[in-house]
């Protein structure tokens, strides 16, 4: 049974989270205590469980009962893990496996502040469309040229500008020989060779 949040814009926090150092860091969205199964109910379909690895070491069974208690409810189920110990490799390996079985997604954080920010972000971005991560952001011509040129290892912003200012167009820069490119100040031999090889390399390799 899903608890209905009292306000559409607030995060419901399980009372057992009282005293969690991440709470003061939830600043930009309101939150209130409520009687819910998960630790945080961010939206009606998104819930979070919180786990400190230090605590996990002392009570290894705790998180499993909490995961079980969720049952099949909620679409997005986050396990927010705070790395507060150096012995993390084994517990993370084990938690990775059990979250795969129980259908939870792990988010790692390294500080209470970061953890708080994650809780907050899930609320803030509740209705954000995916455009920000779905496609390349519109950029001006020179930035695109920069993106293109700096894909080659060792080529930086200045080199990119030097190249385009010397040759005028991307086509001329692509067609230029090693000798011509080598004359652009800042373009050393290695860089030049890498660039020329990259633009001439065949797309198709294997057979």
């Amino acid at each position, binding site marked *: 049974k899903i608890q209905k949040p009292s306000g559409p814009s607030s995060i419901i926090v399980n009372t057992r989270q009282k005293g969690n150092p991440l709470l003061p860091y939830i600043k930009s969205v309101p939150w209130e205590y409520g009687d819910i199964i998960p630790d945080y109910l961010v939206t009606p379909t998104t819930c979070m469980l919180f786990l400190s690895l230090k605590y996990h070491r002392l009570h290894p069974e705790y998180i499993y009962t909490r995961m079980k208690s969720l049952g099949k409810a909620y679409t997005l189920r986050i396990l927010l893990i705070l790395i507060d110990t150096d012995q993390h490799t084994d517990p993370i390996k084990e938690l990775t496996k059990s979250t795969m079985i129980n259908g939870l997604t792990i988010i790692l954080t390294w500080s209470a502040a970061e953890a708080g920010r994650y809780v907050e972000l899930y609320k803030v971005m509740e209705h954000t469309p995916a455009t920000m991560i779905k496609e390349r952001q519109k950029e001006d*011509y020179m930035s*695109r040229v920069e993106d293109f040129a700096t894909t080659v290892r060792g080529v930086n912003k200045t080199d990119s500008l*030097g190249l385009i200012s010397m040759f005028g167009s991307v086509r001329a820069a692509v067609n230029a020989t090693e000798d*011509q490119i080598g004359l652009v100040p800042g373009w050393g031999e290695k860089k030049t060779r890498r660039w020329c090889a990259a633009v001439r390399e065949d797309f198709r390799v294997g057979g």
Partner: protein
Amino acid sequence: MDHTHTHDIPAIRLSLPLPYQQEIFREAYNDDAFFIIARGLGVQQIVANLLHAYDTVGRSLVILVGATESDNTQLGEELAEKAAISRAYDARGLIVVNTDVTNVGSRQRMYARGGVFTVTSRILVVDLLTGLLDPTKVSGLVILHAEKVTATSLEAFIIRIYRQKNRSGFIKAFSENPDALSSGFSPLSTIMRNLFIQKSSMWPRYHIRVAQSLEVRKAEVIELEVGMTPAMQSIQNALLQCIEISISELRKGNIGLDIEDWSVDSALHRSFDVLIRKQLEPVWHRISSRTRQIASDLTTFRTILLGLLSLDAVSFHQYLETILASHAPKTNTTSHTQPPWLFLDAAETLFSTARRRVFRGEFPKRSVPIDIADIDLVLEEQPKWCVLSNILDEISRTRQSISSQNRGGPTLIMCHDRQTCVQIAEYLEANVSTSSLLDESHPSRFMTRKFLAFQAWKNDFNLFHSSNAIRENQHQPVDSKNVTLARKAPANKRRRVRGTAQFATTVRDQSISYFSESKTNEANPTKFQMLDDFEEQLDTQTPESLGYSEREFKMHDVDETIVIYPYGTDSDDSLLEELKPRNVIMYNPNAAFIRRIEVFQSSNEKSNDTRVYFMYYGGSVEEQTYLSQVRKEKDTFTQLIRQKANMAITLTSDSNLISDPQEQFLRTLNTRIAGGGRLVATTEPPRVVVDVREFRSSLPSLLHGKSITIVPCTLTVGDYILTPTICVERKSIKDLISSFKDGRLYSQVEAMQAGYQEPVLLIEFDQDKSFNLEPFLDLNTVVSSTQSDLQAKLVLLTLHFPKLRIIWSSSPYQTAEIFEDLKKGHQEPDPIKAISVGLGDGDDASSIYATLPTEMLKTIPGINDKNYKHILLEIDSIFELSNAQESGLTRLLGQEAGRRVHRFFSSNIYSHSSGD
């Protein structure tokens, strides 16, 4: 199985004249060992002879691992030549298997025929895993650049696969870079374990046999310390100040950083930027953007420091202008910040002094051609130039004084890169033609020419900048045929055309000499149209004829030729042998080349003594780098020899275990993994389907080390298929950021979700030696916008794909553990099914795409994750794409996208104002 591991050296002709070379060869032929040889002592010659010995035996299959492209060219030539000389008709020379050999079938046939192969590591590992190349059929491996064989490297993976199946074949490894073995915990034994070699053999310059061989005839070396001009001095000082301030800034922001031993002196001789970057690397994702900016500034400083010595004053100024321009605040973005160092007083000194080396006063800001007489030109010359012409004068005077028979070979000028070669060639040529009116007050013709080119560039550049912020769509496409190829670059072409008679500047690794190149250019005179404008201007300035005639060309006999070369890595050996120079001028110091001269000198007892002029700028980066290089190599060898002595006992006990290589390497690997992995004994060995592109990472090698069968496939969806339901996309932090930025990750996850029940994103942190997950966010530093962006994007991704699971891994080692764990109790994945996931009808699954050009392709406006495949199938390379007709592109991509791609290439940043 046919092994050629005999201990008799076949009757071939060796081309190793020196005793130490022969000794190394014999040792290499008879024993499996790891040879560490000081730079410049001729590793390539020894390897070439060794490979030739195998080549002549026939029926053997020897594979050269880790060779670079230039190694392949050089060794290929050597082997062909040796085969001809030894009259070894069975010899087939070096067979190169690289990305050009695309066909699986033809590769298999080639391997079956045997011979000496050099195979690109990424292809070799896949061929060994798929069984295309049967490890038991391999007679042996010869490993070049063995210092690069780290535990997680592809080469180590190759050797392990080979050793696992083939215990009797040989492994011989060579390294010319002892410095790489100077850091880390017992680096020598680690590398030897990776190489499966138990014997090491050290050959420093001070080795008694080497010293004896080389001190038979010493070369005459004349050392010339050249002083920097006051302006250069003050630029260097200003730079050092910038560096000092930046470093202390770094120290403030990053408390843990180990830069205590920092001093201005160390800035001069160490690649400090690389050192600092290395320290920051494991925590790169969490350091503040300011720290990141400073780290990249340090690289800029280093480039400027080197540029100060190598570039002429005009080019140096132009480079600084480019740096300024590329950091100038953009009008359309508000967030852009300028690097802090630009606001330092020292930076001001740097920029103004560099400008004053070129001209005084203001640069006229008009686009109309300005008479250069209006500008107060300084055009400071590089001090080395004058020294160089003096040396050349001296040489030619000496030549005239001695008898004609005894003149010896040509004069060879060596410098550190091709850019410098061209510069010297141009300078000398201009200098020769103006020598009659050479006087101190008059700026040289060469510099004037440089300035004219700069002036044209600057005018265009100002124009472009004042109009600013060109939008992609406002561009007027330029007809592809009429694009003036390189606005300024041909200026030098022209010079070269004229200069070839005397200055045959050759580029060996490309086997094009400027001479032959210039011929082709003359056949196509249209390219020089722009240039003629410069020429006209120039000719009115100095009314002396520049005419070059055939007659003049013939007057120079071979011995008076001046040849200018850059230091190559391996080609230098044969260079001296071919040219047999009488005089060598080392324009830049280079420790390895000094030794090559020694080797050459001692190898050719009948030839004339070679005189060496050794030039360097006193108190400069150049000098310091040279000195520390020599010192470091010596120290490293001493250290390695000590390590070798201490290692002897451990190795013999280890060698018992070698009898079971599988046990051996597992044990080796498991000691590195906390917890230790256990083998699961099942009837079906555990299997992971891995995308072939993933072989650049160390994860496949580590999985293989855990006895998981690796099935290399070309996957359209995902990188690793663990079970029939689990599909993993691996991202390093860097990949994660970039694939979020261009939307690639979104479509990858989308595709995984469509094809698999359990889509997984693996976030793999850089391999950290202490195996600690570093904090994502450091509270001591300001939370920058990019960091919060990454977290916000991660949140957004999970919100849109609630079924997506995330594996967080501190290193590839942990990933291997996690993968093994996740596979337990699950079915093995089916490779055939994995390949077909995500393929539409008619898609070709058999081809592999080259990563870099494909990545570049995807950054081009108009190309997206869906349509880029059309390009890959129809067009060969970026080069071809850039010259494609608009009509062809619109046919492939559709109207809008096709036009955008075409415009990306054809837009001319200078012509838009007239075009609109």
